[in-house]
């Protein structure tokens, strides 16, 4: 089986270790991974800000670059939702393109959904000694309907202690450009999420979206919280207990 | 008169829908059912309700209780009347108003209450001039007693069809409302109720009755700090008295299919 990785712009520029983890763990289960080098962004920031004309060329780009792929895997619920739901919708009036987008959307998966629903694995041989909680990001949960996949995978990790989050399905307040259009509002919503995270007593908060993680980590850091924010892929990629620190983030999201 | 004519208004609506002409009558199942279909539908409902009568009464009792009714299952009509008397004593009532439902022929509250010196006023305006007086009586009364026209087990609802002898206000103005429910009046669901009412509408050749009230417990509010308070404008207490079946054939309800 061969997977084409759509790594997303945030992971590419800010959190490459997330992409690295994805490659590692897919290869661990015997999957061939390729990375179409011409990829940049799915276009969601433009679409959600009202600039469809700027989003369309990027959607076209995705279509052209990945159309031959057997599977496209995206380590982000939000970007996967863009590609699977919004992009075909954007081309609804354009005969030909719509069908192509639909077909490719059908082969495009968010990482946790790909692992659990396509590969049907729940145990990736990961080991992670630590107390973690999980924030289900909104688009993964509501656009893609992934209610259980990530938690199934987390529970399959050796040595992990999982503590559920209070009101898990409440938004963290990121919302893409919303976070800078209404910073105090976004921050106030985040505040509740941070309180919920703190209440779990977890060392690590896990999510499947680097955008939400960046937001949560940025808030935690500003408030001096000692909790780390990690992408699910980073947890799943660990096979042996690390010396000292529970994670191995060099820079970016893990630095929470 | 201010406003827009119907024709102009509908023209704008049509334009917004991208149509020039008025729409033909749409294919809509609930509208398409004609008198005979609707009658058949109601016959089926009646049969189902009849077969499940015992369960329905139990369900009504349970759900009504959850909705805030104080439910009393009377062993006899006399017991029901006794319940009203007991209530009147508890409230130190000196005036009880009631509707002119048929059920009062079975449940003799007038004599019982009057024996105790409690006035009972049936709300029936013989002359138009009475209306203001009757309204004052209803506003003064501590208890209003009514029959019902239907009850719905799904929602714990009593349904009243105000008409001659059935004022809207008997169940509304006094702080205590007692509804007397007979077993044959109980339906299972809201769908049943509206199917029966629709048949009545068709059979009455378009006369829907001016008013239909569904009451599911006492009046309530949570408008201050989301704290539930029972009793605002309508009754503070709502009692549902479930009677045993009448020995003779049940009296016909409004909306019962005519052959």
């Amino acid at each position, binding site marked *: 089986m061969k997977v084409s990785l759509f790594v997303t712009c945030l992971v590419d*520029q800010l959190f490459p270790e997330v992409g690295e983890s994805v490659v590692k763990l897919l290869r661990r289960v015997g999957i061939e991974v390729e990375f179409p080098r011409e990829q940049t962004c799915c276009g969601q920031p433009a679409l959600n800000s009202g600039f469809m004309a700027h989003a369309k060329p990027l959607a076209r780009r995705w279509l052209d670059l990945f159309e031959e792929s057997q599977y496209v895997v995206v380590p982000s619920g939000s970007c996967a939702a863009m590609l699977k739901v919004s992009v075909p919708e954007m081309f609804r009036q354009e005969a030909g393109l719509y069908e192509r987008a639909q077909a490719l959307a059908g082969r495009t998966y968010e990482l946790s959904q790909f692992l659990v629903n396509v590969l049907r694995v729940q145990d990736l041989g990961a080991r992670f000694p630590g107390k973690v909680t999980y924030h289900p990001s909104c688009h993964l949960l509501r656009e893609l309907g992934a209610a259980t996949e990530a938690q199934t995978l987390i529970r399959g990790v050796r040595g992990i202690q999982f503590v559920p989050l209070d009101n898990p399905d409440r938004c963290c307040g990121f919302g893409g450009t919303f976070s800078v259009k209404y910073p105090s509002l976004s921050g106030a919503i985040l505040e509740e999420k941070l309180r919920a995270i703190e209440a779990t007593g977890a060392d690590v908060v896990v999510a499947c979206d680097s955008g939400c993680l960046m937001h949560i980590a940025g808030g935690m850091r500003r408030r001096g919280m000692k909790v780390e924010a990690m992408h699910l892929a980073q947890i799943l990629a660990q096979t042996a207990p690390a010396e000292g620190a529970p994670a191995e983030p060099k820079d970016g999201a893990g630095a929470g | 008169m201010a406003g827009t004519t119907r024709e102009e208004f509908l023209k704008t*609506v049509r334009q917004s*829908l991208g149509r020039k002409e008025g729409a033909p009558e749409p294919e809509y199942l609930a509208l398409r059912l004609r008198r005979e279909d609707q009658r058949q539908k109601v016959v089926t409902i009646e049969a189902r309700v009849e077969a499940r009568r015992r369960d329905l009464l139990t369900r009504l009792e349970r759900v009504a209780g959850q909705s805030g009714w104080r439910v009393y299952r009377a062993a006899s009509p006399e017991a029901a009347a006794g319940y009203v008397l007991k209530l009147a004593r508890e409230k130190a009532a000196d005036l009880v108003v009631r509707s002119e439902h048929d059920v009062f022929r079975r449940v003799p509250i007038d004599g019982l209450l009057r024996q105790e010196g409690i006035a009972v006023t049936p709300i029936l305006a013989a002359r138009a001039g009475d209306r203001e007086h009757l309204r004052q009586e209803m506003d003064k009364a501590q208890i209003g007693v009514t029959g019902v026209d239907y009850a719905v087990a799904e929602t714990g*609802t009593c349904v009243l069809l105000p008409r*001659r002898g059935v004022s809207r206000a008997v169940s509304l103005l006094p702080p205590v409302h007692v509804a007397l429910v007979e077993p044959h009046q109980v339906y299972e669901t809201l769908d049943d109720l509206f199917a029966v009412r629709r048949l009545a509408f068709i059979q009455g050749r378009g006369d829907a009755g001016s008013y239909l009230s*569904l009451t599911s417990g006492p009046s309530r509010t949570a408008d201050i700090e989301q704290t539930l308070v029972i009793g605002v404008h309508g009754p503070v207490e709502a009692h549902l008295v479930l009677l045993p079946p009448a020995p003779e054939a049940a009296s016909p309800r409004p909306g019962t299919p005519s052959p």
Partner: protein
Amino acid sequence: MAPVQVRTQEFPRASSRALANGRVQQALTNVMGHFDHAREAAIQELTPEVWERYRERGREIKRHAMEYLDFYLELLSERVEANGGKVHFARTAQEATQIVLEIAKALGVKVAVKGKSMLSEEMGLNHALEEQGIAPVETDLGEYIIQLAQEPPFHILAPAMHKTKEEVGELFAAKLGLGGLQQIPDMAAAARKTLRERFLQADMGITGVNFAVAETGTVVIVTNEGNGRMCTSLPRVHVALMGMEKVVPALEDLSVMLRLLPRAATGQRITSYVTLVSGPRQPGDEDGPEEFHLVIVDAGRTRLLADPELREALYCIRCGACLNTCPVYRKVGGHAYGWVYPGPIGSVITPVMVGLPRARDLPFASSLCGACREVCPLKINIPLMLVSLRRRLMEGAPGERGVSWGQRLLVRLWSRVVASEGSLRRARRLAAVFQRPFLRRRVVRWIPFPPFSRWTRNRDMPGLARRSFHELWDRDLKTTGRSKRP
């Protein structure tokens, strides 16, 4: 009370003010959870599968009713008149107000008792009545409180939810001379007593309409307090105000709608009172109004109807569930939105009703988390409509556009950067230099340039990674043996 004012353009400042207002924050914290829990419990009791079936049916009823709205409005008006009622049509809120005033003047009305009606808020009806010397008395307890306080509703369902009982006590003391009320039940009892007098003296009852059944010419009013039934039974004239989208085809459609509305709104199986009015008192009736007037109002609704991307907004039954679940509403409350309808559905409806440029900040007041769509009993796709409005603001006709040069410039720039891998690489090099002065241990805590400055105001920002994933791939990952790592 002042006429309804459009303050939608103040949302950015008003929302910040609400965030800084301790009393508003306290009220929101205390109250918001109740609604959510009640709704969720009601759905669980029914089972989510059955709830889903009702949602689908309700949606189908509304879809159909909107598609044939002309037919059903005509049928409704014919049937109401056949029942002895009088039907009026108003294209605008002002027309609707004129109609009500003319009815009131013709009958010499001095006091009008009102049930809760959001449409009457659109019309600014209370103000108009007062100007004509007619006393409008709100009778829903929440509406009564905010009428005394001279404020607009904070929530479409619980208009006074931002008031503490202490504030209500003070208000009753100051405006009604009823001092010393401390407990909520005593306040409700006081309102019962005060308003009972008004009910009995009022000449006119004004209510909204939750549903209107075309087939039988019936309007349905849903309340818990019993005030709706008072307004429709005691005064000698009843005026019902309805937005034209309230119509459903048949009586039996009500069973679905009546299952959806109370559960989504307050978590009840049904409200204490559901009242079906099909015209004035008939000969022989013991009571009821001598006249029944139904005012059917457009006031911008045909614009939604004509718009394939926004028509769904007319399916809204005003249950308030989307407000209760919205992370933004839960933080800023209703007043910040600046018009009658707050929250997610308000951010769709308001811009169409008051004009998009004037309400240009509302469609952006959402993280697009989708919680509103999830709880909507009619499954209205609110996030999709918000994005559609954002698009009009950015790409629409000049009349629709909101001026936002900053955003336009940014998106152009961004487009150039992400247009190809090469341009992204070049931009990255530039950004790496640019970020250097602000980087402390790989994190930016402060940067003066928007939009980044708006992030670092209350959150740290990660710096660019040492190497992009592209670089990592080229250096390490591409060549790593396939399927061979331990």
